[in-house]
């Protein structure tokens, strides 16, 4: 570690020397100040608004937890967070399963590896807005997949996933999986490539089949990656906004409302800033519930690894 030199102090340094010595800190100050404001001041500010009776404009009259009470008694909020649970479960499991399958397939020394990887990963470079828009067209019963299949002769085929309030959430799940299974694939593939090849050779000499080698030897080694992928995707799920905004706009009706969508609605469509801030705080709380234990776990694991070195 190189430390900035601390002055031992026999001869008083000139202002120029002082400036030179201070420059590392001075460089950091603007970013630190901005980040501090962004992270802490903004959070406390929003927290405060959530405890006030702000409606169309922010006000600072303290009303305790009434915004939270009203939020949790609201049917739309209940739909929003139960959607979030449903979405998270299917989205994470689906994207990880497909991602892992693709990673293992690509790991079989296939030809054109770069091409396959490029194809599976490109959706991640595209915005959720683009993805959501295109998929909303595909789900459209008049012009999309339903029309295609009916055109093929199957005239009573019905596929109106996004137009039915009971199934619209699954349209979002499918699109979400399409968008981010490539991401899971990339991380799994990086993990598979980091496994010690001698381990695989040893398993083969021990007579393990390919399937068994993956199940018993390779996948346990990359177990931490599963957790990392899951945590990142829960994060995506909690923050989900663009995809829904472009795909269903929360509809039909209010059936695909998500917390982030509802925050936006409360703040900018209905002028209920206080309650919107309360919903935003709930999103932050949800992230904290996932990320705080995870970061403790990561620190713990790193310590453990360092001890073994």
């Amino acid at each position, binding site marked *: 570690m190189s430390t900035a030199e601390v002055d031992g102090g026999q001869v008083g340094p000139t202002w120029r020397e002082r400036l030179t010595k201070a420059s590392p800190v001075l460089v950091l100050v603007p970013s630190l100040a901005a980040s501090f404001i962004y992270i802490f001041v903004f959070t406390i500010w929003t927290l405060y608004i959530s405890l006030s009776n702000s409606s169309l404009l922010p006000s600072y009259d303290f009303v305790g937890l009434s915004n939270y009470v009203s939020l949790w008694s609201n049917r739309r909020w209940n739909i929003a967070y139960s959607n979030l649970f449903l979405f998270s479960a299917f989205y994470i499991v689906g994207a990880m399963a497909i991602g892992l399958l693709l990673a293992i*397939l690509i790991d079989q020394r296939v030809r054109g590896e770069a091409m*396959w990887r490029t194809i599976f990963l490109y959706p991640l470079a595209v915005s959720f807005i683009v993805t959501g828009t295109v998929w909303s067209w595909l789900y459209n019963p008049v012009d999309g997949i339903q029309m295609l299949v009916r055109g093929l002769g199957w005239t009573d085929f019905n596929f109106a996933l996004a137009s039915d309030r009971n199934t619209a959430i699954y349209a979002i799940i499918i699109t979400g999986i399409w968008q981010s299974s490539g991401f899971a694939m990339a991380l799994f593939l990086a993990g598979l490539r980091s496994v010690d090849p001698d381990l695989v050779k040893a398993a083969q000499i021990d007579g393990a089949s390919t399937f068994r080698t993956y199940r018993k030897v390779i996948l346990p080694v990359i177990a931490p990656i599963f957790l990392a992928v899951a945590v990142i995707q829960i994060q995506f799920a909690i923050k989900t906004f663009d995809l829904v905004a472009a795909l269903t706009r929360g509809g039909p009706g209010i059936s695909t409302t998500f917390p982030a969508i509802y925050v936006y609605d409360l703040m900018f469509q209905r002028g209920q800033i206080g309650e919107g801030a309360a919903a935003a705080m709930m999103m932050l709380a949800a992230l904290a519930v996932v990320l705080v234990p995870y970061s403790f776990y990561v620190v713990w694991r790193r310590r453990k690894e360092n001890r073994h070195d």
Partner: protein
Amino acid sequence: MTDATIAAVHDREAAIAGRRHLASRTIIYALLTFFALIYLAPLVILVFNSFREQPEIAQNGLIAFPRSFQLSAWADAWSTYCIGGTCEGMRRNFLNSLWMAVPATVLSTALGALNGYVLSKWRFRGSETLFTLMLLGVFMPGQIALMPWAFILGKLGLTNSTYGLILVHVIQGISFTTLFCRNYYVSIPDDLIKAARIDGAGFWRIFRKIILPLSPPILIVTVIWQFTGIWNEYLFGVVFTSGREQPITAALVALTASGTNVRAYDVMSAAVLIGALPPLLVYFFGGKYFVRGLTQGAIK
């Protein structure tokens, strides 16, 4: 058993193994192809429809092989299509996104590189703690910042302006860029810095002459990550700007939502592609770095 029969048994085993190998290869490529088709389909459909004529789309549906050809949808989408009363196409919004994403990317990357340099090579008491605190910004949901930003942008007179969005994205991006650069610079040996200090180089000269020449890999990763992220961002765009000032993501939602138009899939497809093109180009040309950014972002 004679040698001949042993050889025959071996041949048979080899043949079975060969057949099994062939079968498993076939399954592998079949699965990969199947998934590749699903992944490519939306993009291909978009490209096709942007060149098909609207009446033909209406007749044959969105998912069909083109039987007509036109270029006018692209021209319409770019400069004349009407969204909510103004008929300027996506050009203005595209340029908004460009003028937003490029400066915000450059600024946040530059700040991240400097921060990363200080936090890895000029540590001081408490600098690790400061770094950890800055990392919290990576996880902050944008919704928390909406009201404070609205207030601050209002006070600064930057509401409904690209400059406002630049400010928002730079500050939001600092956490990411600092994280990327710091983690990369940590792997540069400290002895280089010590040698340079003895050689008479100061803080800035070491940065310019030693750190920066070693930085291209991480700067490319950071620039790609920031550019695609900022270009694709929607929430801040739709909240803090409106109409002609919107970035392209917000404009696309407005375009496809506008009820007044009959669904002009040809123009909308071209518009969506225009919105998707810059990050796609970045992805196809910098794919290696894009993946590296992803994996690094994940190992935070």
